[in-house]
């Protein structure tokens, strides 16, 4: 897998991730695990049920994962969403932020799948 290409396509920081996690082989494995992970689906389920705690939890998880894997764009949008729900019900409309999370996450997954 051409990891540089994957990271370039999804708005990630390849230099950062390889600096921390050391081997390409390891980064590739974890990037694939991310593409298979269900946290985004859980997030959408929480959104569907208007479960504020769930939205916080799963956006928090997405944020953590994208931090660890240096998916910079997804980290920014998921972090924004997470902050809106930190204290329970959001004080402003979150649909735009949620759209960005969906878009950024799709970019990451698409980049991984298309380079497999």
């Amino acid at each position, binding site marked *: 897998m051409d990891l540089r290409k994957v990271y370039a396509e999804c708005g990630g920081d390849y230099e*950062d991730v390889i600096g*921390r996690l050391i081997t390409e082989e390891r980064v590739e494995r*974890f990037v694939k*695990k991310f593409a298979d992970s269900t946290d985004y689906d859980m997030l959408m389920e929480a959104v569907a049920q208007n479960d504020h705690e769930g939205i916080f939890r799963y956006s928090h*998880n997405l*944020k*953590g994962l994208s931090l*660890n*894997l240096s998916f910079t764009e997804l980290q920014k949008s998921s972090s924004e969403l997470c902050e809106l729900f930190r204290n329970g019900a959001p004080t402003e409309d979150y649909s735009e932020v949620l759209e960005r999370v969906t878009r950024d996450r799709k970019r990451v997954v698409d980049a991984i799948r298309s380079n497999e």
Partner: protein
Amino acid sequence: MRDSILIVDDVEINRDLLEEILEDEYTIIKAKDGIEGIELYTEHIDDLAAVLLDLRMPNMDGEEVLEKMADMGTLAKVPVLVISSEDSLASEKECFELGVSDFIHKPFDDQLVRTRVNNVASLYMYKEHLEETIEEQLKTIHARNANLIDFIGSVVESRSVESGDHVRRVKAYTKIMAEEMMESYPEYGITEHDVKIISRASALHDLGKIAIPDNILLKPGRFTEEEFEIMKTHSMEGAKLVEHMKNMWDEDYQKASYDICRHHHERYDGKGYPDGLKGEEIPISAQLVSISDVYDALISKRCYKDPFSKANAFQMIINGECGQFSPKIIDCFERRIDDFEKIADMQMSAF
């Protein structure tokens, strides 16, 4: 051997990533939430070098996990590192207050994670090793003290050829009396520790006999009044010797030994020596040794007398024929006479 790391995090990729970073050096145990975390923690507590704990988890969160660990009293043994992506200082402070040792920040950095975990784990293992070493050494010191006291006691005893294993029997009677006193009369505030100290120190009760000349100490038959006065000085002489041993042992040993040496011939009615103390003026340690000493003198053959039977010895003490004891001392003696007789029947080698 503490060679395992417990990772408690609800996000699988985080668990796996930490596992990969640390698996070369440790056996990795993984839990997906707090409940499973506590289960595995309890099961593997003796193998754990460290715990990596996420705070936000379903079912049981990290804070609750920390509280449970605090209740178990194991936070001082196994360090906990919190996995955090929160950059708020307040929550780090709270974590430290809850007993957390350090943090693993996201994003994970291979080298930083290894270094932090290794540092904290080795510090705790070193601390544990030191604590164990100190505990062992304390045990050795206490055993050595006790042996030394026994040895000094037996040196004194060896001068009076007739008394055999008097010192060891008195020690055994004293222990029984002190235990009974602790159980039956809590007003004296005797603890398990005191029982040990008093019974060990009892070995020194006749230490002062070292200062008594042979012609008196070993005289067969009755003392003249003058000789008896010299014999009586052994209490005070013993106390003086104990005073000279001041920096040799713990203060509680010192005090018990001093009281026992000086006051084991005092009598409850004030007719004893050297100070003529009355009633509860006599330190309880000395009262406990006193009755033990008298009982053993009665049942033993001495150069000036034949042994009394155990039944006679018991009656003589109860009837106050050998000086008066406190009612509480007599009560304890009566309750435990069977144990006294068992010791009286033992051969020297049984000690």
